[in-house]
Structure formats: structure tokens, C-alpha cells
């Protein structure tokens, strides 16, 4: 199963994850 997020955000939004990285619920995905 997969969860896809699609969202509008200011262009300054940065993901602070890497592709393939394991992540837990509640951990930061991105920041403005």
C-alpha cells in the first residue's frame, strides 16, 4: 500500500527526506 500526498506550498518548501529513506509516522517530511 502507498500514500501519495499532492499539495500546494510556497516555492520555498523543502523536503528534508531522501528517496528510499525509511520514515515513521509523525517525522518531518518537509519545511518552509
Amino acid at each position, binding site marked *: *500500500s502507498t*500514500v*501519495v*500526498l*499532492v499539495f500546494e*506550498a510556497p516555492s520555498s518548501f523543502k523536503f528534508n527526506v531522501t*528517496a*528510499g529513506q*525509511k520514515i515513521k509516522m509523525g517525522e518531518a517530511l*518537509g519545511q518552509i
Partner: protein
Amino acid sequence: LADSWNNTETKWYPIPVALGLGVIGAIQYRRVRQREENKLEKPKYVANGPWQVHVAAALPLRSMSRLWGTFNSLTIPEALRPMGYKLYSWFFGCNLDEMKNPDLYAYPNLSAFFYRELKEGVRPIADATLVSPSDGKVLHFGVVQGENIEQIKGVTYNLDALLGNDDKSSIPVGDAILGNSLEIVDEEEFANVNGIEYSLEDMIIKGHAVKTESPVGPDGLVRSEKTDPKVEKALVKLADVTPDITNVKVKPGNAMFFCVVYLAPGDYHRFHSPTNWVVQTRRHFAGELFSVSPYFVKLLQNLFVLNERVALLGKWKHGFFSMIPVGATNVGSIKINFDEALKTNQKEDIPLGTYTEVTYKSASKVLGGKALRYGDEMGGFYLG
């Protein structure tokens, strides 16, 4: 011609009853035929790709998924449960220390164990703009280029196809009947979300609606004793944000982003709200149930627009926001906690390639949908 037109006598006759019945019968026959044709499933996706894709496309994946779910719902003899679940956990890397109920005898079958809850506090919510909605692996993320989302390097799928904005075959159902998780008595009264009472103003921050006894901060946020300071900090003027979810266009200075999180078999399979947002619409797409493992994602183009999925569309403080749980062969059923009407992976489902749509307007007149906060449990995936 003119002479005929002007001088031919017109005689009027009553239409024979048999002819009238015949016309009505023909209309009815055509209507029934169209209805039956609509019930037929669209032909399966004709796969393009290596032999693995052709093999998968030829399999009755939806039936297999339901069979898998039925099998895993069979009650396991109590004596075998601890051993069976420990073996499963060892194989798929589950952390049994995080379980809310550590008694392995309490899970009657693998489906119940698979949908296990976690202890309070084992998943702290980070102080970030966006947090992960679930445990898993980040498959891909980035900026939506034009109308396309990159599935893997060089392979894209269409944003409108994913969300249903290009599909004219929607079946609007109407307003969803929500559960008791959110009850709005009055717009100026209190809402009850997950057992926590708080003012609607805490969520919507309407300056003109602020009660005189509520202290208002310099940023316009209403301070409430019952609001978590962390949540309060992130509160937004959601009522003022009105993105057009049927025609997604970003505002100047903004961009459209995407992120794909893959949940492996051993992972905690519930998903939570990744931010403070309002869900306005749900679109349930009937589709295939291909595997969504990273291996298959690389093999099959447009995988995420082929599979059965539930697109939750709404808004957050920066504009449009959506979350799309996508089903897979082994976990074909998607549950949304606040939408009891939603039934996925059904035998008699809507035709493949179409979707049903409901709105959550009844949840809140002001917000226009179901309000969610960071970390609120939204639903999850069931086996089969």
C-alpha cells in the same frame, strides 16, 4: 412543391395505442441496455512492459485480494497465535514493543494483528510544516512539473488522472454521512475532535468571530486553554483558503509538490493527518490492485492511476492539499475513519476507471469539510 405544401389537406389521426406502447418500450429497452452496459467492467489494462507485468495483468488480482483478506480473517487457534505472529514479525521486521496491546493472544487473526494500534507516544509529531502520514519508505518526492508527477526517473503520470479532474465519468453521491468524530452544534459553539473539545475559532481563526472573552494573540490566533501550544502555533486561516479542487492551479509564488510513501507488509498500517487541513471531498476510484512495491513501481507505468485509490481533496493554509491512499494486492481495502459509507475492494463495485464522489460539507459549514490536525488518525489499510 409550393402547391403541395399549400393545398394538401392535413388530416390528423390519433396515434394507435400499440404504436405508443412500442415507442415507450423501445425507449425503455434502450435505457436498460445502457444501464447493463455500464455495469460491465471495462476491459483490463493492457499491459506494456516486461513479462512480469503481463503476468500480473493477466491475473484476477481483485478476486485474489478479497480471497487473501478472507483467508487472513480466519480465526487462528489461540495456542498458535504467539508463535505465528512472532514468526511474521521476525520475517517482516515488526517492532512488537510498540504495540498498544502486547498480548498476542488477543489478536484473533492476522488481519487484526496487521491493523494493530501503537502505544501512546511512540510516534511523536515533529514540529514541521509537513510530517509523514504513516510508517514506510519514501519512494519519491518533488515538484509536479506541468500536469505530470514523476513516478520514477523519466516515467510520469498525470496529476488530473490521479485526482480525477480529467475524468468525466464521476458518479456524485452527495454528502457523506460522517461518524461522531466531529459534531458541530453551532458555528460558534465547540467542536469535539477525537475527544478533545476546542473552539472552532481555534481552527478557523476568523477575526470577526472571536468571542470577547477569548484572548487573541498579536498574530490573530485565538488562544484557548484546551489547545496544545504546538497545534496552536500551526493554526491557520483555513476558512479563508478556497482552492478550486476541481481545477488545481497554484497561486503565484507557490508550486505543487508530491510525495509517495510506501508501506511495507510489516509496517504499522494506519495513516494519520500530515498537517492541519480540511478534507472537502472524497473520490473513490475503482481500479486494479497491482502490487505497489518499489520493484513493481519501476516496472509498471502509471501504476498509481491504475490502482484502486481514495483521493481526499481539500485545503490547508497554503492552498490545495490532497492525500491519496492507494490499495495493493495484499492490502486492497482502504478505511477512512470518518467515512463509514466508504467500501473499497468490493465485488460489485463501480466500473473500473470511474469514481464516486462525496463531499464532507456537512462536517462544518464554516470550514466546508472535515477538519484534521497533525497526527489525527485518519484510517488505514486492511489485508485483502
